[in-house]
């Protein structure tokens, strides 16, 4: 696959967050969540974000997606010079399916109407193992099924930037592995930039080109670990397993 060195790809977005606070409703003092956080994403790059629970990973994704503009700093899109990101697929930490729509309608909703979505949706449902459930209302699906549906929805828009907040939790190991493979296939086909949050180092090793490590309280970038496995080797378990062990020991020292 991609044989060009990744550093030569054009940058897609530059993130420079000086400070992001939330007002504490009781004390009315602001609580700083993100501070001095700067990095860039290049086109077609896959980057993982790890960090302790509650440190601010979701908040970071929200800022990049432009859902929260109340912060000091900037998110600069290389291409459009707008504050809007390019075509975005977002897998939220909670599935956020509309419960009053069926599974199929939930996915069709995000598609352009002029495309012929039916076939495409059917394919995606089959790939995420949801074929039999297309006509069920979203709140009648199990949590794992909802998560898969949220993945299918994000894939469906053929995003240029794919943000995923812990995309493969709450799934059994075979299903999760199969969906990771699906992600790699999709990357292979349309080369989106992917930024995803995970707590699973093995998953980060398998999928990402780089791993951003956030500290806690407030979150800063304390390390950036390049994975350095060629894309062709990603599905090779022994290669990723070896690298994973290395990364994990680095990781344990980081968060000791």
């Amino acid at each position, binding site marked *: 696959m991609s044989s060009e060195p990744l550093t030569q790809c054009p940058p897609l977005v530059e993130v420079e967050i000086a400070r992001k606070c939330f007002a504490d409703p009781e004390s009315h003092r602001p609580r700083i969540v993100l501070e001095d956080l700067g990095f860039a994403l290049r086109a077609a790059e896959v980057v993982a974000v790890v960090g302790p629970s509650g440190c601010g990973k979701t908040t970071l994704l929200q800022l990049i997606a432009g*859902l929260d503009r109340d912060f000091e700093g900037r998110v600069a899109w290389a291409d459009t010079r707008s504050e809007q990101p390019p075509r*975005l697929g977002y897998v*939220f930490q909670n599935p956020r399916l*509309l419960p009053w729509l069926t599974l199929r309608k939930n996915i069709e909703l*995000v598609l352009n109407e002029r495309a012929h979505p039916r076939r495409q949706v059917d394919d995606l449902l089959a790939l995420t193992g949801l074929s039999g459930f297309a006509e069920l*209302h979203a*709140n009648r699906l199990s949590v794992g099924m909802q998560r898969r549906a949220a993945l299918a929805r994000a894939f469906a828009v053929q995003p240029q930037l794919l943000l995923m907040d812990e995309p493969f939790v709450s799934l059994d190991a075979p299903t999760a592995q199969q969906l990771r493979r699906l992600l790699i296939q999709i990357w292979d086909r349309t080369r989106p930039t992917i930024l995803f949050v995970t707590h699973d180092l093995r998953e980060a090793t398998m999928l990402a080109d780089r791993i951003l490590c956030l500290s806690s309280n407030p979150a800063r970038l304390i390390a950036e670990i390049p994975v350095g496995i060629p894309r062709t080797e990603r599905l090779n378990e022994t290669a990723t397993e070896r690298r994973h062990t290395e990364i994990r020991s680095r990781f344990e020292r980081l968060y000791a």
Partner: protein
Amino acid sequence: MTPSLPAQHPLALRLASALSLILLWQWGAWQAQSNLLPTPSAVLDLAWGELVHGPLLEHLGATLRRVVLAFCIAMLVGGTLGGLMGRLKTLDAILDPWLVLLLNIPALVIIILAFVWFGLNETTAVIAIALNKIPNVMIILREGARTLDPDFREMAQSFRLGWRKTLLYVTLPQLLPYIAVAARSGLALIWKIVLVVELLGRNDGIGFMLHTYFQLFDVTGILAYSLSFILVMLGIEYALLQPLERLANRWRR
């Protein structure tokens, strides 16, 4: 273990309950033995007579037209304004004093002023009725818009659904219970205000007849005309509102 009730069961209950209502009325009328509480059959007789030979249909039509027109105007204007006020704090602050004023101005005052300023015509009547209902719709939908889930809004925003899809598939379904409340209480309120409007400045309609019978203190006539409209409202409720609501709530667990 608990078997779920079959779908027919509520219908039977409903009918039984309606029947018991009529029986209670009949019994009360027998007890009272006074023309201040006529029997249901006397009322139905009169209503039937007025329907077939009298002017009931015409008055009913006049009132119904006003109700429907004012209802549509009030739901559209009040719903839009109220929904926006629930989302936009600035607009809320600007319109709020007007809203409280309009909400609490007696219907009588609005109607008199409208009639005296703009004359006794059908347009004035419908607008006066709608003006009485609009603030009510506004407060209901403002409250509804405040409860909108930010999670869904963010979803719509990041997938760039655009305002049409967002309104149709994300916002309206969340507002639905509030719209149902506004519609149902709205029909009832409008119909009550129509009565005042027709009392003060129209030559036809149920309200006109009600007050005419009131001058004569003919309770049978009052009940016959009220009932004829109540039956129309019952029809709207059971043939339109409730099936629509069931359809819209099918997804709920």
